[in-house]
C-alpha cells in the first residue's frame, strides 16, 4: 500500500552525458561529456576574470571594471594568478580536444572566403565533422594566444629578470594578443548563443538535437547515428 513517490528522473541524455559523448540518446545527441564542459567553463571563467581585472589596467576607459574587485590594486594582484589559471585551464582544454582538431585539406579556405560564406549562412557542406574549420582555427588560435599571453605576462610579472628594452615588446605582445583574442571571443560567444539556436545547450546540458547536428555538423551526425549521406 505504499504510495509511489513522485519521481522526476534525470533526462537520459544528460545522464549519459555525465561520462560519454558522441552518442544518440532518444531525440538528442550528446556532444560534450561533463568533463569537456567543465574544462571549457573553467577556461571561460578564468578568461573573464582576466578580462575584468586586466582591462582596467589596460586603459582607464574600463576602469569601472576594477570596482567589481575592489580597485585597481586588487586587480593588479589578482590578474597574474588569474592568467596562470587561465593558461592551465586552456592547456587542459587543448589536450581534451586536440585529437578532433586536426585541420583537413578542404578546411584551408576557412582562413578566408569560407569563413565569410559561413557567416552569410551560405554553406551547404555535407563534409563537416564534429568541428568545422572555423572552430578548429579558433582552437589553434586560442592555444597560440594562451602561450603568447602567458610568456608576455610572465615577463610583465617579473620585469626585473628581463632586459629593459625587451619589456616594451612584452607589453605590446600582451596587449596585441589580447585584442585579437577578444575580437575572436566576441564572435565565438555570439555564434554560440544568439546566432545559432540550440548550440549553447551543448555547453550546459551537453546535448544537441538531431536536426541541429544534421544542419551544423552533418558528417559528425552520420558518424554518430550511422545514417547514410543524404541524397542530392
Amino acid at each position, binding site marked *: 500500500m505504499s504510495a509511489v513517490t513522485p519521481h522526476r528522473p534525470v533526462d537520459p541524455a544528460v545522464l549519459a552525458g555525465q561520462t560519454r559523448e558522441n552518442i544518440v540518446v532518444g531525440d538528442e545527441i550528446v556532444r560534450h561529456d561533463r568533463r569537456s564542459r567543465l574544462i571549457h567553463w573553467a577556461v571561460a571563467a578564468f578568461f573573464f576574470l582576466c578580462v575584468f581585472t586586466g582591462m582596467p589596467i589596460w586603459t*582607464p576607459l574600463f576602469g569601472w571594471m576594477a570596482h567589481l574587485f575592489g580597485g585597481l590594486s586588487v586587480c593588479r594582484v589578482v590578474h597574474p594568478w588569474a592568467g596562470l589559471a587561465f593558461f592551465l585551464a586552456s592547456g587542459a582544454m587543448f589536450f581534451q580536444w586536440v585529437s578532433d582538431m586536426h585541420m583537413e585539406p578542404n578546411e584551408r579556405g576557412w582562413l578566408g572566403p569560407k569563413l565569410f560564406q559561413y557567416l552569410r549562412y551560405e554553406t551547404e557542406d555535407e563534409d563537416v565533422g564534429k568541428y568545422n574549420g572555423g572552430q578548429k582555427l579558433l582552437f589553434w588560435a586560442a592555444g597560440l594566444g594562451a602561450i603568447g599571453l602567458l610568456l608576455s605576462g610572465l615577463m610583465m610579472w617579473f620585469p626585473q629578470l628581463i632586459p629593459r628594452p625587451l*619589456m616594451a615588446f612584452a607589453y605590446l605582445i600582451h596587449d596585441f594578443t589580447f585584442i585579437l583574442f*577578444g*575580437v575572436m571571443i566576441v564572435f565565438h560567444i*555570439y555564434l554560440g548563443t544568439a546566432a545559432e539556436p540550440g548550440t549553447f545547450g551543448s555547453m550546459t546540458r551537453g546535448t544537441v538535437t*538531431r536536426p541541429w547536428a544534421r544542419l551544423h555538423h552533418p558528417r559528425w551526425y552520420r558518424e554518430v547515428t550511422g545514417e547514410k549521406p543524404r541524397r542530392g
Partner: protein
Amino acid sequence: MAHGLDIRRSSASVWGSLSGMRSVPTVSKYIDTTTCIGCKACEVACQEWNDLKPVATQQVGTYQTLPTLNPEYWNLIRFNERDFDGGIVWLMRKDQCMHCDEPGCLAACPAPGAIVQYDNGIVDVNPDQCIGCKYCETGCPFDVPRFSQTTGKMAKCTLCVDRVTVGLEPACVKSCPTGCLHFGTKEDMVELGHTRVAQLKQTGFANAVLYDPQGVGGTSVVTVLGHGDHPEWYGLPADPHVPLLVKLWKSVLRPIGVVALFGAVVGAFSHYTKFGRKEVRGTDSQDRNLPDA
C-alpha cells in the same frame, strides 16, 4: 613659489592637462659636475630629509656608495674614470630623477593619478594610487624609478616637493658645500648653466654643455658637463626619449584595440540584424528519414 601643486599631467587620466591657470614658474635643480667634489653630503641630506633608512654601502671598485639607485636611496653620486688625452678624467655626477617635461614614467603608468607632474614641473609618485606594476621602469629613459619590496610601490626622488612648495630649496641643494648645486626657476637655472658653460669653454673645456635633453622636452634637473660630447661618460644617455615602443603601446595600439573590441561587438549585432539566426529547419522525424506522422 609657495604653491605649484596644481596637476599639470596625471597618469592614465585626461584631467589636469596643462591647465595653466596659475602663473607658476617651472622649477629646476642645477648641477655643475665640474665643481662637484664627490663629498656625498647631498646623499646624506636626501636620506635625512626624506627619513629614508640607512643603507649598507657596497664596494663597487670606486668611491660610489651603491651600484645604482634603490627604493630607499634616491640620490647617488656616480663616480666614473675615463682615459682622456693621455691622462685620466675623474667624473662625478649626481644621479636622481630628472623630472622630465615629458615624463616617460607617467606615459607608461596605468594607474590614474599614480604619477603626476605638478604645475611647477616636479614629477612625483603618489604611493596611494601606485599599484606596483613597474611599467614606469620601462617608460623611464634614465633608469630611475625603483620598486620597493617593503611598500609594494615605486619610489624615487620627489625634488623635495614638500620643501619646494613652502619656499625651501631641496635638501641636497641645501647641503652642497661647493655650490655646485643650485635651485630656482628653470629659466634662471638655464641662464646660470649657460654662463658656466661659457666660462668652461674659455678655460679648456671646449665641449662643455648644459645637459637639458630636448628629447624629453627638457628636464627640471639641468646638468653642466665638462665633457659634453660624451654624456655617456657620466652615465647619461646622449639623446633620451620616451621609448618608441612605449608610445606605440600606449598611443597607437591601445586606441586601435579599443576600437577593435567595440567594433567586434557592433559587428556581431550588425550581423544579427542582417542575417538573423541560423535556424534549424525540419522536424526530427524528417531528419531520421521517417514519414511524417
